[in-house]
């Protein structure tokens, strides 16, 4: 049962609609971005971040695109730029947002519509399992 073809294993991840799997390639691209997020775990750093986001970001070797996406709280773009959701959560928790509030921003739905969808049983997997297969 061991995986012998790593290329085929990784290629399948790109076939899932609306999903960024946190692969090693993303982990490398997002290393400093995610470690920046981790730095927000202390009250002192959160206070410094809230006081001046630009000054705080100046200390971190993020790309210009990553810095702009952090400032814009564009979480889908941050996922594309190597961010991982559990690390990005440090940004939105510092903003005072819950997971539901922050996650809904990635779906193009309002928080109320997203919450209503969850209470109604969540998003159906029908049609969003595979891009190529369309099932």
């Amino acid at each position: 049962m061991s995986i012998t073809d790593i290329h085929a294993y990784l290629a399948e991840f790109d076939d899932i609609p609306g999903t960024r799997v946190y692969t090693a390639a993303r982990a490398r691209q997002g290393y400093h971005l995610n470690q920046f997020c981790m730095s927000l775990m202390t009250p002192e750093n959160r206070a410094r971040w809230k006081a001046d986001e630009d000054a705080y970001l100046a200390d971190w070797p993020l790309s210009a695109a990553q810095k702009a996406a952090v400032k814009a709280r564009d979480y889908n773009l941050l996922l594309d730029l190597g961010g991982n959701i559990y690390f990005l959560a440090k940004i939105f928790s510092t903003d005072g947002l819950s997971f539901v509030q922050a996650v809904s921003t990635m779906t193009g739905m309002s928080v109320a519509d997203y919450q209503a969808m969850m209470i109604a049983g969540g998003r159906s997997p029908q049609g969003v399992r595979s891009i190529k297969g369309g099932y």
Partner: protein
Amino acid sequence: MARITHGLASSHIPAIGVAMDLGKTGEAYWQPVFAGYQWTRQWLAETRPDVIILVYNDHASAFDMKLIPTFAIGCGERFQPADEGWGPRPVPDVIGHPDLAWHIAQSLILDEFDMTIINELRVDHGLTVPLSACFGQLPQWPAKVIPLAVNVVTYPPPSGNRCWALGEAIARAVASFREDLNVQVWGTGGMSHQIQGPRAGLINREWDNRFLDGLVGDSDHLRHIPHIEYLREAGSEGIELVMWLIMRGALGRATRALHRHYHVPASNTAVGHIILEPLS
């Protein structure tokens, strides 16, 4: 000798912990979630496990990107709740069982599972929420806990097959510990959920319930589910369910279910919970 008496699986949704910590469990939204744990609380009070081997994953709390162990075992005396950004949860410290934990660590390494050993570890909601859901709010946890952390965040996580085999090795290790202990193995996380990207909010009730079905009886087909199936069917965070297979693997050839609970939603996630007894 020590023996594994039961397996338990539970989601570890952070909002469940928040609901308990803020006294919201009586609200209409939360009542059906907690109703499924009432049986468990009574049962745990009667069965009184000495030690729980609690399989969970850290969520950028104790481990960041500096260090990513695939399988790690907590061998320390005591583990404090982590501050996940809102302050540590107001729950008791988790008390370890270093003698058994070190025995398992040594046994697993000799059994060719190359574990990472942790002595200092802050435990996040992945570990404390199942304790809260299953025991309720208590001044101290009524069992010792051995944390077993699994990487399910950075790909690739371990295969389901490897998780199942690790559970089998844990069972061998526990069986060779020369103290009479009632040990349970808990697998946590899941069930279907996705908390990232435009597909966020995915829930797959049918797939989840087939997974629950598959834990019961003498089939081991769940160990062969590839990662891509978890991702497609149970959402990007549904991959946490491989951790339930460590629990199932530890129970041996066949099981029966004592209790089962499923509810949608809690926050972004399908709540799943099952208690299994090994059949010899």
